[in-house]
């Protein structure tokens, strides 16, 4: 009945997740890029902005991804770019989940006029054209990476807020909430200790899908020149590449592949978690649940 009633050991959780092959692929790709990002300063042979060779060299042994118009190593840029994309993607998604959970849970639990106020606010944020507002805010507040993270986070919480709110609306009527009230629990305890753990799984799924969106939004912003000039991201590399598209395909293709693969991986992971928490969607095809299920 409740998604949270599925309780299995950690090993079983992993087995269940890994039984979904595309989700497994997603986590493999994502961890690959995370490792690249973490190790970038060690693996990269050059600093991303250093001019190291003749410009516009196609991929070769010395420069596996070629060099750009100014003679910078694209592989080094690619490695450092993954740091920006992944850190922005993860932290912005985390930020948006945090806001979404806070707004959704308080709104759903308290109901009444506070709920109305919060939900109209949420509608307002859904209505906003995200990308243009992000550009606008970047113009005002600057393009430093942490500002980009805050902007993306602030613009992408409404979906999570709505999901969490709807779970709270039904969960707050459950008997276990009444029994927690009967032992003298405060509203704070009821929201964060009793109800939230039961409502969190859709928020986590939504958040993991949000990672891909955040990466894409950041790439788009940098592509249009709203990226952090001190931290070259994949989008930033693409924006330089557009001028040389006809003569230097490698400048666009490699960062493009990076963006494509990380977003794909983030979405596969999100789908995987989603299917894991909604057992009905997959297990029937695979011949029964792994681990104990209670309905």
């Amino acid at each position, binding site marked *: 009945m409740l998604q949270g009633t599925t*309780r299995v050991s950690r090993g079983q959780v992993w087995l269940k997740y890994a039984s979904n092959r595309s989700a497994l692929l997603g986590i493999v790709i994502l961890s690959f890029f995370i490792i690249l990002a973490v190790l970038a300063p060690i693996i990269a042979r050059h600093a991303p902005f250093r001019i190291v060779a003749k410009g516009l060299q196609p991929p070769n042994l010395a420069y596996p991804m070629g060099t750009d118009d100014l003679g910078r190593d694209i592989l080094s840029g690619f490695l450092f770019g993954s740091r920006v994309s992944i850190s922005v993607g993860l932290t912005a998604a985390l930020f948006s989940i945090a806001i979404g959970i806070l707004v959704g849970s308080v709104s759903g639990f308290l109901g009444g006029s506070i709920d109305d106020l919060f939900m109209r606010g949420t509608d307002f944020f859904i209505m906003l054209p995200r990308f243009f507002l992000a550009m606008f805010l970047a113009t005002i507040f600057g393009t430093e990476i942490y500002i980009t993270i805050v902007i993306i986070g602030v613009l992408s919480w409404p979906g999570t807020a709505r999901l969490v709110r709807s779970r709270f609306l039904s969960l707050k009527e459950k008997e276990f909430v009444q029994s*927690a009230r*009967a032992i003298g629990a405060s509203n704070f305890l009821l929201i964060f*200790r009793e109800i939230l*753990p*039961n409502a969190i799984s859709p928020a986590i799924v939504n958040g993991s899908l949000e990672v891909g969106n955040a990466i894409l939004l950041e790439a788009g912003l940098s592509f249009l020149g709203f990226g952090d000039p001190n931290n070259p991201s994949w989008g930033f590399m693409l924006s330089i590449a557009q001028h040389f598209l006809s003569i230097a395909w490698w400048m666009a293709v490699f960062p493009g592949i990076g963006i494509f693969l990380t977003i794909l991986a983030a979405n596969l992971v999100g789908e995987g978690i989603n299917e894991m928490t909604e057992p009905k969607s997959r297990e029937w095809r695979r011949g029964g649940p792994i681990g104990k299920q209670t309905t």
Partner: protein
Amino acid sequence: MGRLANRQLEVKDLRTYFFLRNSVLKAVDEVCINIGEKEIVGIVGESGSGKTVTALSILRLVPFPGRIVTGEVIYKGRNLLEVEEIEMRKIRGKQISMVFQDPMTFLNPVMKVGDQIAESIMIHQGIEKKEAREQAMRLLESVLIPSPEIIVDYYPHQLSGGMKQRILIAIAISCGPSLIIADEPTTALDVTVQMQILSMLKDIKNRLSTSILLVTHDLGIVAGVCDRAYVMYAGKVAETGRVLDLYEDPLHPYTRGLLRSTLSIDEFKEELETIEGYVPSLISPPTGCRFNPRCPCSIEICRKEEPKLLSKKGKGVACWLYR
């Protein structure tokens, strides 16, 4: 009735109404209940008679759109209906605690049972988590749960219904309350487990010297466990008295009907007797005595005026036949 001196809880003229869109449902109307120290008091009645709402009103947990309109709930010299919500929270679980009907749904499915017991201890006694956990294990032991050090880390769905009910009891007694309200604690359990739970409640009463308010629809349970009982009908108390008196000499026609419609192993019945008709709608209850449309001894005045609860033969009865 007697023993007026050592009253644990006194409910006076309680009225809890549910305010629906176009109407008012009088779920509990002019109910008076006394519970003495170390006493097990039963509230019996059909479903919809207002017994659960009475119990919830005592702790001020009546769900929306219900509201306590008037009345007093006197506990340790204070009227609980007038204290601040923050004060009330300190009373709930610590002074007066509750055991609920359905152990399957009244436990949080994603919290370990040990944590759920520890939570109540932590709220009221402000002790550290580790110590609360040890107390939780002792409580599990006291409600006869085998190997508490393992069960403490179980989630509710890993336990049977009877064990879950014991967990709820463990939560209820965790802070040494002076009154436990048990709302149909055995309804969701099978008969053998019912016995265990009931004898556990009795044992708790003796061991911790608490009073217990037992809400049930089962006359057998009342006979087996309670000292006194209130028979409720359509939101009102129809009859009250010591359980023995109620069973041996029921005065109110409703109580008589209820007792006649129970099954007994000792006596053979060709056909089970029933009380004709249904519980009336509480939105527009019958004028006069609420039982009069179903009452076999209904007389003129029953249809016109509501009878008051008067004492008769050491009991209280609300019926015109005993004026």
